[in-house]
């Protein structure tokens, strides 16, 4: 079973993925990265691995593996 992988060190917290997620599975985690950005987290129970977040992310945070 594939799963959404999040590379948090790359995330800049723009929120595009949260806007585009059809299942509202993504949200801000409150964890601040080394660069000072609020990073995203996924609720695996809601995620359907559609890849929408991958397609809009400018910082290559997501992969489905």
């Amino acid at each position, binding site marked *: 079973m594939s799963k959404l992988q999040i590379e948090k060190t790359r995330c800049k*917290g723009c929120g595009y993925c949260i806007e585009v997620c059809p299942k509202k599975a993504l949200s801000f985690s409150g964890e601040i990265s080394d660069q000072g950005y609020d990073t995203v987290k996924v609720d695996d129970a809601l995620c359907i691995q559609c890849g929408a977040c991958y397609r*809009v992310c400018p910082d290559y945070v997501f992969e489905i593996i």
Partner: protein
Amino acid sequence: MAEVRLPKRIMNSGGWCQGCGHGVVVRLIAEVLDELGVADKAIAVEDVACGSMSMSGVLNCDAIMAAHGRPIPVANGAKGARPDSIVYAHLGDGSAYSIGSAELVHTALRGDNMTVIVVNNTVYGMTGGQMAPTTLPAEKTASSPKGKDADRYGVLNVVDLIGKLNATYIARGEIYDVASTAKTKAMIKKAFQNQIDNKGFSLVEVLAPCPTNLHMTPVQCKEFVHTEATKFFPLGEFVDK
């Protein structure tokens, strides 16, 4: 569900600002180069501006950095010296339509065989958000703090500038959501395919957000580009020979 992996040519995320559209455009280029099987012989010609950050450990591809506004003639020279390479110029709207407009016009006039990817975010990004020819009427920038006077300065649409010259393909896309990003990728793919088929000059403009210089949150800026910029820069394929 099928696996979704980043193109092998993408090594890391870039140093772009939060919400910058360049990252998506570079990923689309990397995907297209992989799909067409030309990544090994691709040469990127970058502008001295935000787009050039794809050279700093992001896209694993041969690259040249041209002087500001001059990626198009440098790419033209690279293509002339290495005709078997797939050469593309990746630059911004200020570079392509203002500083490098003479080079753009004459390359399109000659119909030289190359691919140009222009990221239009309606401002000069790297230099601090000054007004560009593509800045929208009444849009506030660092050098038009009361809003752009469009009667005085105009708004430049690239299709009006080079649409009747000898370009093979001119298209404009956006990266607002999944569907529009997929359409933009298809445009970029066609622009590269034209070069492989020796068909001539192809230009794809991508409307992209610049939240830092437009002083908006990334999501607000993306919405602004989608609703306001598309009024002056309609999407679609304008020249397709």
